[in-house]
């Protein structure tokens, strides 16, 4: 039955891809929504069945067919539902269905065929994402992995007339391919070394060998390669640069693919291979450090961006970094917990930003917003809940999951990483509320030329290129609105239409309560989620109560009691961090706007550095992209191929031609010349024999 879960969206893709251009929007959108709801329903039923099994036996497996068979390499297309996959499919189909519903309103201005094309891609994405999380071996996961990358490419470039969108799509695909290169090498190494790509079998085999403590052996290399793959898909240093650009895609796409689901695939992959990574402590440390650096770096960039979606994009990069910190600490449950809560509030925030953009007819620059609270109440209140949740305000979803990451990091003794994560939390609260205050509070600002400006408006010229294009491409989207200028009249600002409001409200409820599946022991809960997930992080042969390899999940009861005090202390600290962060944002961007300007002017260098995202794109262009392009064009092609190799070929031909030409001159056609040369020849030969 679990094969139905990805098959439903695939069916939707087939219908909309083949017939969609002739269908009215109601039908193509309806089909797309229906298959997602069906897939969600099957997911719920499957998870229900799964939960009915005893904890140690919680897997449901279905082998569809033998995909590849070549000699001793035989690979089945097998899907496997286990507790980890269960969480993932519920998120993908649940949040996915909501975003499909939201999209029917958001994309309504597209013509029928484009509307159907959009939904066919979105369905295809869901199908591949479900294959990714249900795949029972690396190669099936890889099918989903590449498939979601393709859909991401297609959807980022959905408004293909716009060069920035097409560029961003290609960039996403290519950067991901760099990661995939490492990923494939990692897979091959595992396959050749351990003889299987099946997750459970790999886990059993690896569990039987000692961890690679202090040695960087095959397992460490393989897991590191896999992690490089994850840095591509999940936008971590050094391969994160595609994600902010990916915001060129329609906003619901950003919500589904670039916030809630696809970008978390790397985190999921590590969770899926918890035993392997657990046996490679060196790799784990690298994972955690990269995660922490990314979290911090993206958080600082997010602080100064002016495009509403880009702020959220850097926030996503930053939050993903935190998840990797958790994974690297061996706190797999905490990482997946944050993945799960993040899916709610980040999807909500993106959809909220979409509602704002929709209402403002394509405006994305927060310097041109302000005061929208009055006009867009539903959007405002849901966005506020999402912001509180991501900031980690006690009681909301983000609080529980982020707190667990911070706690596990501290407990593992990595206080530097803990400090980085704590600063990230502070930054998160600050930039999120900067966004809230600049967008919804204060006075309505219409265009960059008038009214209050964001700090550092004197730096605008440099920014226009880097902070995305605040001007939507005319003719590419919302065509019906471009005819007359709505934006001039605030009374025309419409809050989210019903389909969008529904998604916002459901996700807001989720952002508020989703954390209660993981209430820590210190607060009197029993961390049901961690308990549910635990079997997925252990080799299949061990009993559920055995400790996670290299992990910290299942400490004994006494340890829990001992640590409760520490956990409560840390919880207080992180709550304080969140509240201070919000307070700082309120002070700077609500009370003393001139302070922000002053700060930006005072630290102009640092400000410009952040605004331009540390110039990493420029660095890559200058050190990698351009040298390769120029080297290929002038060096390899014009130089070696045309010059040396073909030059040699044509040179040989010319030489032969010249030689023949010289020989041709001997063929004078004159009988006397022939007779003369014959005579000389005879004389020479005779002479040779006579004087030998």
């Amino acid at each position, binding site marked *: 039955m679990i094969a139905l879960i990805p098959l439903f969206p695939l069916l939707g893709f087939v219908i909309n891809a083949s017939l969609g251009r002739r269908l009215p929007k109601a039908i193509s959108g309806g089909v797309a929504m229906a298959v997602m709801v069906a897939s969600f329903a099957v997911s719920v039923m499957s998870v229900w069945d799964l939960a009915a099994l005893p904890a140690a036996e919680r897997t449901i497996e279905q082998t569809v067919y033998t995909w590849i068979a070549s000699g001793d390499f035989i690979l089945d297309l097998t899907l496997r539902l286990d507790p980890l996959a269960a969480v993932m499919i519920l998120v993908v189909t649940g949040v996915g269905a909501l975003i499909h519903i939201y999209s029917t309103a958001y994309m309504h201005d597209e013509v029928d065929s484009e509307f159907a094309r959009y939904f066919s891609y979105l369905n295809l994405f869901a199908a591949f994402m479900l294959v990714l999380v249900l795949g029972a071996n690396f190669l099936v996961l*890889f099918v989903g992995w590449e498939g979601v990358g393709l859909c991401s490419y297609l959807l980022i470039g959905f408004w293909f007339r716009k060069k920035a969108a097409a560029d961003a799509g290609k960039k996403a695909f290519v950067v991901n391919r760099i990661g995939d290169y490492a990923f*494939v090498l990692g897979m091959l190494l595992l396959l050749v070394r351990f003889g299987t790509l099946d997750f459970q079998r790999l886990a059993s085999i690896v569990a039987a060998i000692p961890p690679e403590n202090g040695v960087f052996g095959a397992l460490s290399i393989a897991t590191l390669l896999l992690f490089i793959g994850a840095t591509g898909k999940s936008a971590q240093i050094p391969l994160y640069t595609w994600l902010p650009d990916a915001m060129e895609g329609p906003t619901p796409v950003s919500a589904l693919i670039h916030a809630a689901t696809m970008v978390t695939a790397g985190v999921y992959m590590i969770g899926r291979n918890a035993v392997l990574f657990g046996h490679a402590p060196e790799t784990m440390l690298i994972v955690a450090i990269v995660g922490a650096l990314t979290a911090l770096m993206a958080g600082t960039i997010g602080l100064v961006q002016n495009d509403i979606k880009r702020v959220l994009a850097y926030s996503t990069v930053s939050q993903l970094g935190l998840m990797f910190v958790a994974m690297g600490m061996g706190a797999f449950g905490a990482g997946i917990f944050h993945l799960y809560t993040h899916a709610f509030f980040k999807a909500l925030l993106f959809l909220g930003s979409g509602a704002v953009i929709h209402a403002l007819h394509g405006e994305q620059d927060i310097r041109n917003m302000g005061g929208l609270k009055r006009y867009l109440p539903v959007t405002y209140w849901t966005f506020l809940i999402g912001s509180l949740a991501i900031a980690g305000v006690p009681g909301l979803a983000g609080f529980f999951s982020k707190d667990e990451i911070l706690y596990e990091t501290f407990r593992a003794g990595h206080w530097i990483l803990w400090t980085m994560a704590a600063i990230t939390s502070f930054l998160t609260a600050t930039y999120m509320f900067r966004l809230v205050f600049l967008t919804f509070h204060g006075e309505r600002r219409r265009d960059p030329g008038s009214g209050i400006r964001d700090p550092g408006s004197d730096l605008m010229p440099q920014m226009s290129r880097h902070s995305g294009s605040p001007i939507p491409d005319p003719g590419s989207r919302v065509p019906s609105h471009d005819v007359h200028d709505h934006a001039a009249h605030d009374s025309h600002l419409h809050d989210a239409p019903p389909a969008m409001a529904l998604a916002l409200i459901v996700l807001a409820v989720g952002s508020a309560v989703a954390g209660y599946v993981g209430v820590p022991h210190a607060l009197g809960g029993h961390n049901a989620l961690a308990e549910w997930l635990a079997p997925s992080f252990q080799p299949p042969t061990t009993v559920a109560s055995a400790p996670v390899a290299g992990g910290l999940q299942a400490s004994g009861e006494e340890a829990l009691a001992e640590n409760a005090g520490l956990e409560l202390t840390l919880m207080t600290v992180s709550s304080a961090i969140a509240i201070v962060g919000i307070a700082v944002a309120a002070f700077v961007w609500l009370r003393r706007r001139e302070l922000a300007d002053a700060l930006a002017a005072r630290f102009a260098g640092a400000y410009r550095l952040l605004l331009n995202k540390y110039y990493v794109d420029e660095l890559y262009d200058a050190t990698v992209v351009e040298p390769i392009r120029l080297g290929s064009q002038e060096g390899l092609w014009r130089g070696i191929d045309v010059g040396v190799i073909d030059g040699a070929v044509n040179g040989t031909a010319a030489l032969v031609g010249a030689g023949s030409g010289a020989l041709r001159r001997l063929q004078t056609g004159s009988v006397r010349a022939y007779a003369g040369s014959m005579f000389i020849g005879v004389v020479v030969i005779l002479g040779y024999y006579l004087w030998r």
Partner: protein
Amino acid sequence: MLLTLSWLLPVAGALLLLFIGNADGRRDGPIRWFSLVVTVATFVVTLVVWAGFDAGSSEFQFVERYPWIPAFGIDYYLGVDGISLLLVVLTSFLSPIALLSSWGSIERKVKEFSIFMLALEAAMIGVFLSLDLFLFYVFWDAMLVPMYFLIGIWGYDQRIYAAIKFMLYTMTGSVLMLVAILGLAYLHSAATGTYSFDLLKLYALDIAPQTQMWFFLAFTVAFAIKVPLFPFHTWLQDAHVQAPTAGSVILAGVLLKMGTYGLLRFSFPLFPEAAGYFAPALAVLAVIGIVYGALVAMVQPDMKKLVAYSSVSHLGFVVLGICAMNIQGVEGAVYQMLAHGVSTGGLFLVVGMLSERRHTRLISEFGGLKAVVPRLTTAFMIITLASIGLPGLNGFIGEFLIMLGAFRWDPRFVVVAGLGVILSAVYMLWMFQRVYYGPVTHEENVTLRDLLPRELAAVVPLCAMAFVMGIFPTLFLRPMEASVNALVQRVQETQTLRAANEMQNARFKMQTVQRPMR
């Protein structure tokens, strides 16, 4: 009889056309239909062969053998095994598609064009079926003639240069091979007293390792030019760019595989020790070709040149798989040959459709076509994705198996070859983006028409095949398994040099498992 029928049918068709008068082009339509029917019938014949093929056996099947020149031990000797079977089917599958693609563009001398196309098909099928080296050589050279004329007569502006370059390049290799073939027959007579060109008898011949080296090089240079292996590749882009679409489709789809097929059928099993000695060097050239071809493809302003260089890159994978000489490597290589035939044949087809519409192949002349020609865009996208090896499409299976095989042999090659996978996405998607995305930049492009039913009939089978090969690879892997197994064993058993060579690489080899990988 079926095998003879499969190459004789196009010959018969071509002969029949010779006697049809078509001076004023009045009969162009019927001639086109007639040759299409002939190629489709040939396809059906090869499918019947496939249907009757026993996948469990590694022996040559459907064998036909008649003495031809008994004094020299030359026979008319045909047969298929799992390796040649699929290549024959690929040939007969692509031929009608190539013919269909020419209907809109070839308006001059349609009769002659059709005759050459049919003759070309017959020669290609003959090459794959021959088990007698002399017969093989006859078909091998017979193949050059129609291709020469196809490029030289129906090509673009620099067709004469390209045709002659193609001819000279390949003839150089052919001459070396001919000498080697005659030498083999001589070796056979030296050992047994009679001349023989029988491949199986020559397999059994015990050739001294030193002698093997020379023979191996002679054969391999001929094949390397055909593949084309870096640095023997510079005829390719000229031939491709100048050839008419149908010619490019066949050239990329089938002709290039003659080289890799030759390596598999002749170079490696005939001279296993030499093969073991030279395999690392060949593999080095192959991985250079993979990266080099991809980098040069990336900066081409001409779509056909881009696709031509991409072939250098993709065929490098095939050679790498062959050099690995284990099950996954060789099966991957054969699979990649088929997959490349479908996807690169398809690429030349769709690129040809574009250039027919605008009479230019320059990428910069296009842009924003997605809004103008949605169907062509979809077809182009599918074939592009197939070409860059997206899982679920044909290219992935071959590439993955090759990388697995090569990884088991020597991971260092895979580390470099893998870069080709990244670069293929770069050059293909960049081209796709510049042609189809963005605003429409040229006035003339606004009115381009989308695919006609005839063009759909050519493109759809290729796209469908890309999916079938990606989703159900066992359909194609199973028939070749026994033959590939036998080949790998034959080569490895006799490779004493190879063993020494592997010892040399031992520190790069990892401890690997022997049980089935599942």
